[in-house]
């Protein structure tokens, strides 16, 4: 049996994921924690590439490492920069939950299909069908796109609607960032960038920073 060297790449990536995960949990500085979650996403994207799931890797890199890191940073600006230290007692409960969940997962490992097994249950039946039929039915090389956009258009339609619904929810809750304009903004469209807009957003800043400040006071 010849040795597959790529598995060591997988092990290395998993170890790095593990290390970054521990670091995120232990980090009290929220800025560093957000950045490390971006690193975590990038590492998992590399791992997905190593597993030949390039479409998933692409999405993980774009969404996980790109967009969500920026959104987490934007959200972080609305609160404090440091996490509050959690109490001693809470650690034990968390350890118990994690141990039980981890034990359950380890218990399930023997039931998993062999890595890369083409005939495992998730890969057989409909998976084989898609691979065989796509050249005739759709005539495009990328089977993932064929499944996503043609065989399962209904699913993708629902997915698009879900994303739309999420945006509607965010816009209803937070507005589009122009809520403060009626009270504070009197200036005509002003070409001066960034710094000139500060007086206009003062009301937002005050209301937004208040919860952060009370949190900081509580801490000290």
């Amino acid at each position: 049996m010849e040795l597959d060297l790529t598995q060591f790449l997988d092990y290395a990536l998993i170890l790095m994921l593990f290390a970054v995960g521990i670091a995120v949990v232990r980090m009290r500085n929220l800025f560093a924690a957000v950045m490390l979650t971006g690193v975590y996403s990038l590492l998992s994207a590399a791992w997905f590439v190593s597993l030949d799931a390039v479409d998933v890797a692409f999405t993980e890199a774009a969404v996980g490492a790109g967009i969500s890191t920026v959104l987490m940073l934007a959200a972080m600006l609305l609160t404090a920069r440091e996490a509050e230290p959690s109490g001693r007692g809470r650690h034990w409960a968390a350890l118990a939950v994690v141990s039980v969940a981890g034990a359950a997962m380890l218990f399930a490992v023997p039931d998993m299909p062999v890595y890369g097994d083409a005939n495992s249950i998730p890969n057989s039946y409909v998976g084989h069908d898609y691979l065989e039929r796509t050249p005739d039915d759709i005539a495009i090389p990328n089977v993932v796109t064929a499944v996503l956009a043609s065989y399962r258009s209904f699913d993708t339609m629902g997915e698009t609607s879900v994303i739309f619904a999420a945006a509607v929810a965010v816009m209803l809750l937070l507005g589009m960032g122009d809520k403060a304009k009626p009270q504070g903004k009197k200036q005509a469209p002003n070409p001066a960038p960034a710094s000139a807009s500060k007086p206009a957003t003062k009301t937002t800043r005050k209301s937004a920073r208040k919860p952060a400040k009370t949190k900081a006071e509580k801490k000290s």
Partner: protein
Amino acid sequence: MNPHLILRVVSKLLIPMIVVYGFYVHFHGDYSAGGGFQAGVILAVAVILYALIFGMEEAKKAVPPAAVKIGTALGVFIYVGVGFVTLFLGGNFLDFDVLHPDLAHKSGQHIGIIWVEIGVLVTVASVMVAVFYAFAGRVPDMSDEEW
């Protein structure tokens, strides 16, 4: 002297390339990894990068929030619209084969896939920018000391 001169120059060079790459990912989705979703995220990243470097006001001038709001719904509209077009052409809902008579080359499938992916692209790009505007619009732009 602007302290972010290098950032501004580099991002001005990069943003058009990011947008072109986004469209490449979209229209090449039939042949390689990627598709409407990833392309939408990449286009949104271009806008967000612009907002981060040049400030929210400038970004809102380039990509107005009203257009973003319309875009979130427009993408779903395009997607469902393709379904109704196939319905009116005598096929099933989202049955792309009826879109083009050339069944040997499956041109109808290709047209249908590109159009529904455009729907996904428009919605995803708009939603990502909308969520960013919603979050980032609530805090003032970062002062120079915080960079």
